[in-house]
């Protein structure tokens, strides 16, 4: 519904940013103290104010600090935060975050990373949605308005990250802050109910408890935020950057 196409060229690929990134590689990276974490509340909006495009929420995932167990911590934290329980039909269970184990076949190097909704600047799911239920909120969080979702699942096909799940069954005891219902599509909300009141996503909180610095949440548009400083120092990976979706979830060490 809300698509901000004011920045970047029509192809959707922000080339100027790539030049900036190239230049950034030449600058010696300053390592921040591990575990140092921005308290997002200081510059976040008050709970009663509307969101603005002055923010763009993002998550930087440092896969060099993550192993399989850390990824599982993120998955478990998400499941308990949003009440994603097993239905007894594994193929139909929702997956808001899933662990990807990847391996370089030439070198054998392997590691794991959490994969979830990438909260794209140009989300293909919102492009294809016939009712406008999939939308990108102006502060960069991609959501499903389940009140108008008809469950056609076009968005699930369009998403290059396979980030969305369909609710095949009635949801037993949904969490009050995370309503979900049969016949609608669901995905990572970047814990919007927490972010709106100045909190951080559950996965980020849980991962930083076990592996400090493994996930950084913050405002990509705030130059003073930890995530913005970090992405200006190191080359980050945008998954399927060739598609020009400009994800808000960025990866290090992939």
């Amino acid at each position, binding site marked *: *519904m809300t698509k901000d196409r004011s920045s970047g060229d029509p192809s959707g690929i922000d080339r100027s940013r790539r030049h900036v990134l190239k230049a950034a590689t030449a600058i010696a990276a300053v390592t921040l103290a591990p575990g140092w974490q921005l308290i997002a509340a200081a510059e976040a909006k008050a709970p009663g104010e509307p969101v603005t495009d002055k923010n763009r929420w993002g998550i930087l995932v440092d896969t060099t600090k993550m192993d399989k167990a850390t990824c599982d911590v993120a998955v478990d934290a998400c499941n308990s935060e949003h009440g994603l329980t097993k239905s007894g039909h594994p193929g139909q269970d929702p997956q808001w975050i899933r662990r990807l184990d990847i391996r370089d076949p030439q070198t054998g190097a392997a590691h794991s990373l959490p994969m979830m909704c990438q909260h794209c600047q140009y989300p293909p799911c919102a492009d294809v949605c016939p009712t406008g239920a999939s939308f990108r909120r102006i502060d960069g969080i991609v959501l499903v308005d389940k009140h108008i979702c008809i469950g056609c699942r076009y968005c699930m096909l369009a998403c290059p990250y396979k980030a969305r799940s369909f609710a095949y069954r009635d949801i037993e005891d*949904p969490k009050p802050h995370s309503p979900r219902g*049969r016949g609608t599509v669901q995905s990572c909300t970047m814990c919007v109910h927490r972010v709106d009141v*100045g909190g951080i996503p559950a996965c980020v909180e849980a991962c930083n408890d076990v592996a400090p610095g493994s996930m950084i949440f913050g405002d990509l548009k705030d130059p003073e935020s930890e995530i913005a400083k970090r992405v200006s120092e190191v080359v980050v990976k945008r998954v399927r950057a060739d598609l020009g979706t400009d994800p808000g979830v960025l990866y290090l060490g992939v």
Partner: protein
Amino acid sequence: MIHALRLLCAVFLALAVSAMNAPPLGAEDGRVPLPNLAKAAKGDACVEPAEVMRREHMDFLKIERDRTMYLGIRDGKYSLNGCIECHATPDPEDPEVRTVEFFCDECHNYAAVRTDCWSCHNPRLVEETPGNAARLPGHSDAGTLIGQLKDHLAKGAPTP
């Protein structure tokens, strides 16, 4: 003319009020029983007077939902979870559970309205688990502290 209309309205209103004050008609009279709403579990007054809530609660809820979903405004007074907090009543089958379904159904059944809220939202009163809202800065003293800090910065440092 307008005066006459007003008078007519007043008469109708008076009739309607007296009808509501009359003892509820039971099913034995061959009529659908009038709604008999349980008193709210807490608080003295609803967010709006009862007459306004009867007519407009659905609009309040719909506007609130869009403000929350699209604008991220989460402290509105018309939130659905706010309804549940006050109007959840014990479930006859399991008195441990408090649910708002009976309160809602009381009128909706009378008016033959079917709502679809509870296929996604939880009608039961759920205590927030620790580590959830309790740990959010916006819900704790941190928010107040940040506010005070901002005020302090806006005013500037006190001169010695």
